[in-house]
């Protein structure tokens, strides 16, 4: 299990924390949704955004390293004063010559005065856009300096820029806190610069339920990657067992990796455009289905089998078989899987 400081550096923990900070929750609950209390809600998760074409041309002409489009982890929106925050979660700060800086430049430009065009809304629906990096508080000052440098470069190149700021995550003896320096405190209308948002309990991991369980493209420690893989496997396992339990025999269910992944990730799988990552995800599903097939077939005959190009087929002949298959599949635990091993490519890849 990760230490608290390792946990605060984990982008999946950071993303899920941001999502919980805008959830509707009762007062007195262990998580204080400080951003929701300030009026923010989720506008979009991982939306693909590009600067307007003329701005993109100017960005290209500037010679500054950039990306043509960006996918911020989440966009937050405050309807009352029409503010949009393009939020990106990072393990650590970065320098203005790093590859991450090219992503940051595009984010800063997209969040500029023409952000309404990138978001596809009317100009009067946006009063201010900002690029917000969420990272450990220890790195907040450094990233603010980098962001100022990047912004200065862009302004010098006469490119439109949005505000930039950092939200830091830190630990106090009894709580995780959200730290906001003056620009972020003003933008998010936070009452103070240090807002406790999760109460800590000795010997207890403070992470919330993960709404987004896994992202193959983000950098995580081995421990955190293994934890997220376990959560993904649990959700995939539930999707398989749920399909088996809901079926009406006699029937044959087709279990396809894409369908299961979309169910387990609430449709986020469709957003991942990196083909290698998609292959990696499908291999994870095949790995799990292979294990489930072994235990199911050992006790229930040849009920779960791989069909080339189709995924797996689960055959449920009658109510009795269905009940037995559900018992056997339910008994299997993903905890027994080697969560640190990367799945191997197969002929079907």
């Amino acid at each position, binding site marked *: 299990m990760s230490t608290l400081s390792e946990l605060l550096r984990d982008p999946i923990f950071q993303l899920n924390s941001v999502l919980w900070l805008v959830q509707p929750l009762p007062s007195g609950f262990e998580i204080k949704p400080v951003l929701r209390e300030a009026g923010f809600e989720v506008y979009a998760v991982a939306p693909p955004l590009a600067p307007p074409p003329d701005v993109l041309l100017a960005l290209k002409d500037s010679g500054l390293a950039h990306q043509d489009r960006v996918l911020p982890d989440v966009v937050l929106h405050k309807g009352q004063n029409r503010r949009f925050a393009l939020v990106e979660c990072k393990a650590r700060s970065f320098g203005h010559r790093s590859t991450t800086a090219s992503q940051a430049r595009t984010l800063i430009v997209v969040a500029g005065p023409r952000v309404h065009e990138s978001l596809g809304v009317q100009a009067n629906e946006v009063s201010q856009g900002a690029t917000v990096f969420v990272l450990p508080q220890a790195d907040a000052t450094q990233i603010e300096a980098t962001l100022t440098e990047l912004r200065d470069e862009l302004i010098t190149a006469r490119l439109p820029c949005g505000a930039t700021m950092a939200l830091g995550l830190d630990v106090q003896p009894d709580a995780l806190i959200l730290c906001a320096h003056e620009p972020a405190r003003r933008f998010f209308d936070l009452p103070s610069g240090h807002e406790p948002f999760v109460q800590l309990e000795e010997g*207890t*991991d403070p992470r919330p339920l993960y709404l987004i369980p896994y992202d193959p493209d983000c950098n995580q420690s081995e421990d955190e990657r293994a934890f997220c893989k376990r959560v993904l496997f649990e959700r995939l396992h539930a999707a398989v067992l749920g399909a088996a339990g809901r079926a009406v025999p006699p029937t044959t269910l087709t279990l396809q990796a894409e369908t299961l992944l979309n169910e387990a990730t609430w449709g986020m799988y469709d957003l991942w455009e990196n083909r290698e990552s998609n292959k990696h995800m499908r291999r994870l599903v095949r790995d799990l289905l292979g294990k489930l097939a072994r235990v199911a077939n050992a006790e229930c005959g040849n009920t779960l089998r791989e069909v080339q190009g189709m995924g797996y087929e689960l055959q449920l002949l009658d109510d009795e078989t269905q009940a037995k298959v559900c018992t056997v599949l339910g008994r299997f635990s993903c905890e027994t899987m080697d969560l640190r091993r990367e799945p191997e490519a197969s002929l079907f890849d």
Partner: protein
Amino acid sequence: MTALGMEHVTSRREMIRFFDGYSAERKEELDERKTKRPLVKSHLLEILDSVSERGPDGLVNIFERRGLGLKRIDDDLYQARSQSGDLVGFLEPLRPRLIALYSNWDASSLGALVRNLVLRSPEIDHVWLSGLTFNVLWEVVTRLSHRNRFARLVFTHDSVYEVDGIPQAAADAEEEASDGEEQDPSDDVHVIAERRAARFQLVDRVRVVSEKLAQLQQTYSPLYAISQLRFPSPIGRGGHDFYDNGKVTNCSESFRDHRSHLLFVLRIYEEMLRRTEEQAWYGVKTSVAVPREFRRIVGAPLVIQFAEPLEPRVFDYWIESTFGRQRNRFRLWGHPIRLGPTKVHVYGLDRHLWHPLFLELTARGCVAIIPDRTCGNTIHRLVTNIQRFIDPGAKAYLGDQPYAAMVRDSSRDIQYVDAE
């Protein structure tokens, strides 16, 4: 009309006349404390959208597959027979997703039949009326009934996980009633058996209960766990006893009035389901403004806060006996991820409906995320079971809104009329 007469019922009108006459006879016997035959009972059941969307054939197929034969005798009215061919009673869809099974079978035979039906069918569930829901329905009773009428409330709290001695005792308790339904074979004559757990009834005038109940609940939390509530009949003496698992016993002289009360409560429940699913369903939804591009997370968690934190030992019994056993009171499946001495995450299933359910369970409470399309009944069953088996004084919220306020809002615009 006798039981033989029930065979010859061919329309809704005849069914109502039959049960009206039958109910009047039983009420007389009840008043003389000499019940010769069982009272009329209704079981309120929820069926999944997918079944109701399949029309009458869908309904018939689902019940037949589980051993209850249905024969249509009128618009939306079916004669129901058991697998052995015995006439059970009549089944009537009262709302698109909610149905009533009327019968004059004795409580234990009918209870077993319905219990088996629900246990074996992911498409069928009880209507779950939690203590929090009953508290709001009690407010409705106080508005509906004359202040001097007698009210009857039963409170049930079985701390099955709070067992002295060896853990096996808790596990054994878990096996007793795997669907959470407490059998009360004597309920036809209203005798409440004493139990080790807090289970007792309160019978007094509406005005007296209404003055004292809130104070008593603050003093003794099991009084929040109302598991049965009587709606006094406005037509005559007696009333309609609603149970937390959707069973309703007609202790009045009128079946017509009984059915009218079922409709009234089902309209409230239907609105509760609608509001629960509208608010609680989690998912990544595509933005209406920019199809296929922007996705946002919508939904609200169910948050349950216990009045007192559970002892670590009790928490462990709860987790072990719920997720270590296929048949468990909460009807949940999952493999808990341990995050501390009294904190687990479960990315599992509602094992009755086989729909996903994500849970954070701690000594201080529970957070439940129900993904899009998971039936709202999951939430009402969870709240009912937590009040009954874990903490009767637990408070529940859908997002930042109190669950009780949602129930109250659901009951606000429902009219009390026999208009179907």
